[in-house]
């Protein structure tokens, strides 16, 4: 493996890992908080916003999503948008499905795997 290929792989991995961690932490936070529609009916929109922003996992998730965004910007400054964008986005669909199964215990059945893989391939094809 050449050093350029290794560097590109590391950049894509950094984006995918931080984006997946951000998505999983955010989703976990929203499960902790509960149905926002119910909270909004009970406490108003400020109550719903307060329940979200005071959740620790939400804060960690936002930090991870910010890291992912800056990793993406860093990668864009070194590699082509047409390579980094679709590669990182499509891989994140697969890693999110894996992480949601193991960390959030979501029921990722054959239908959801098929959907994740179809969207992953579709997003990758958008690069051409």
């Amino acid at each position: 493996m050449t050093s350029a290929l290794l560097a590109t792989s590391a950049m894509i991995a950094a984006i995918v890992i931080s984006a997946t961690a951000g998505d999983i932490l955010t989703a976990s936070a929203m499960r902790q908080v509960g149905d926002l529609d119910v909270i909004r009916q009970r406490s108003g929109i400020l109550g719903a916003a307060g329940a979200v922003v005071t959740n620790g996992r939400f804060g960690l998730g936002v930090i991870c999503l910010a890291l992912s965004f800056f990793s993406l910007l860093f990668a864009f400054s070194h590699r082509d948008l047409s390579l980094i964008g679709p590669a990182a986005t499509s891989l994140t669909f697969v890693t999110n499905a894996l992480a949601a199964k193991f960390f959030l215990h979501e029921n990722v059945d054959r239908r959801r795997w098929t959907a994740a893989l179809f969207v992953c391939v579709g997003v990758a094809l958008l690069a051409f």
Partner: protein
Amino acid sequence: MNSRHSMTFRRYLVLGVITITASCGDTFLARGMKSLGPVSLAHPGALIHAIFSPWVASGIVLLIGFFASYLTALSWADLTYVLPASSLGYVIMTLLAKFWLHEHVSPLRWLGVVFITAGVGFVTRGPSYTDHSHHHATPAAHSPSETNTEPMAEEAHR
């Protein structure tokens, strides 16, 4: 039955808002930044100036709307349902690129659009939420610390 299980018209509408705000927000940002030209890191003030341009400002407002709708959807649906179901945004972005920004869209990109649409079709025909209610009785209101029984905190049970 827990209200988190059923997909109502209003909830499909929230997924639609996620799709439209994400794709339009990104397209507006791209449109605004293209009209401003390249921004050098040596002149960060240009980025501040960019925020106040109409296209970029509109894009930011749309992306704030996207994040609020995305969080709402995650409060009653699984991540593995919301992400594929809202990926029609890529299709809308391709259509906007073709018919509004007049970019060339290759046959392989159209094939990608078909794959994404099929993926959305698969996931939206299945259940939207994995039931964990046997581990905790009621959804939380304002005290997340009181309901720390969600999947990442509980023991693996599958």
